[in-house]
């Protein structure tokens, strides 16, 4: 390794310093402002805001709907990944490419068009607009790719010898799937699920049109925060935000751990 000159060390330090300054300015200070605003009236004021009936109802709906969405995604995501890797049919490449559409499509567009298909005047005759089912539907749309994309590469890498051995020993396909394949997929499923949970908990654009935002019924946490900001109740908005923030942090950490574990599994 060549000896570092003083100038190059300074240049490296400059890069690190600028990066840190940028992150601090763009992310850290604004987030700190939210935390500070939530505790401005002290701990008891924070607690009062978080436990106000409206906030509790919104947080509860968000949490339960997100959990439901994660469970559905774990099953459908694994199924779709399975079909994309193990099955073969015409147009599979197109289906594979289309999976990422919810990542690319603006959330407000997703909400608008879901309302057109599953709202009043639905061409299918299914109208779930302004119900909790609509919240779940919107969240399913925006989180669709996570589990599929997490499971797909693992499934491709999966050694088929184990399955063949199990089958030749007389295991039925379902048994082979449950005992051999699923345990191998589990870390990827969980990591995809954690990411979808994180996305679902904070979703705003896709939900705001189709849910109707009825307080104590279909109002999710992010809409609750939005309404508080609009009516100038910044402390209330900040308090609920901090709860979401903590939730995000926990989910982020969990996804990180799971991802690392699944990577170790691959090796």
């Amino acid at each position, binding site marked *: 390794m060549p000896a570092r000159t003083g100038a190059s060390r300074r240049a490296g330090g400059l890069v690190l310093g600028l990066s840190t300054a940028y992150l601090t300015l763009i992310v850290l200070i604004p987030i700190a402002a939210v935390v500070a605003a939530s505790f401005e009236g002290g701990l008891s004021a924070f607690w009062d805001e978080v436990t106000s009936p409206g906030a509790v109802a919104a947080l509860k709906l968000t949490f339960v709907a997100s959990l439901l969405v994660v469970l559905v995604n774990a099953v459908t995501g694994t199924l779709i990944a399975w079909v994309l890797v193990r099955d073969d049919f015409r147009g599979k490449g197109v289906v594979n490419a289309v999976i990422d559409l919810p990542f690319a499509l603006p959330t407000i*567009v997703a909400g608008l068009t879901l309302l057109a298909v599953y709202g009043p005047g639905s061409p*299918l005759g299914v109208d779930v607009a302004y119900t909790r089912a609509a919240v779940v539907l919107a969240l399913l749309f925006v989180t669709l790719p996570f589990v599929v994309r997490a499971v797909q590469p693992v499934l491709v890498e999966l050694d088929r010898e184990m399955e063949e051995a199990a089958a030749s020993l007389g295991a039925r396909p379902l048994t082979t799937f449950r005992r051999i394949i699923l345990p191998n997929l589990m870390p990827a499923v969980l990591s995809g699920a954690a990411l979808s949970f994180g996305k679902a908990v904070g979703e705003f654009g896709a939900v705001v049109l189709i849910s109707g935002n009825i307080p104590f019924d279909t109002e999710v946490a992010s809409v609750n925060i939005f309404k508080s900001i609009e009516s100038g109740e910044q402390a209330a908005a900040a308090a609920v935000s901090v709860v979401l923030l903590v939730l995000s942090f926990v989910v982020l950490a969990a996804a990180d751990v799971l991802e690392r574990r699944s990577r170790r599994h691959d090796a």
Partner: protein
Amino acid sequence: MRSSAGSRYALRTLALGYLLLLLVLPCSMIVYSTFRDGLAPVWEALTDPSFVSALELTLIAVGIAVPVNTIFGVMCAIALVRRPPKHGAWLVNSMIGLPLALSPVVVGLALVLVYGQDGWLGSWFEESGIQIIFSTPGIVLATIFVTLPFVVREVIPVLREVGTDQDEAARTLGASRFQTFRRITLPAIRWGVAYGVVLTTARALGEYGAVAVVSGRIAGKTETLTLHVDEEYLRFNEVAAFTTSLVLAVLAVLTLVAMNAFKPKEYKEVADVDRRPPSHETV
């Protein structure tokens, strides 16, 4: 594995049916609803001054956020990989990850609390005569915040894989630090950067929640394309809402095409395996 044709078709039908109902039908509905009443109202919506100004504002936000986050993204990645901070690496990592996990509304609130009228820096900016919230700078800041992670996260793994051997060789041969970056590092990471730029652009074009909080929604002034969709829908101008949505959806599809072109190697391998003839041999 022996899987009967019957169960294979059943699984395929289930998966494709789910995608049809959740994804394909809603996405086709954007096209159908746009052209339902013919071309005239679509043209009217596209030439409406409020649409044009929303398009302009979106392009300004994207035009600033993408280059800024590309430059700082590459810098952050180099700093984190080549000179990892001794302390607080977890803090830097979570700052980079946070915008991905955070609700966009919280991002909006955070910016209001710093740059708004009663915000930490609000009075200072007010005295300087610079308005941030309810104005273009706020929208740009919100877009920068939510798109911050993409380039960094794509470049970090590439940098790790590339290593430092070539850089060090170049340095020993007398190349300056900047020359080394331009001639060695940058070419090595260019596909990672390209993929990150595509992701950043997609997110910047489509951002809604954070922008909704900081924009104040002054039609023709602080409305981006996504806010314009919402605004037109609430005014019962469905065709205009869907026309704008279609514009955004077309941009999203273009992004997808670009994403597939720039996808990192590991995903490419997945796609290659996909193309391999299926092996349904029975044991």
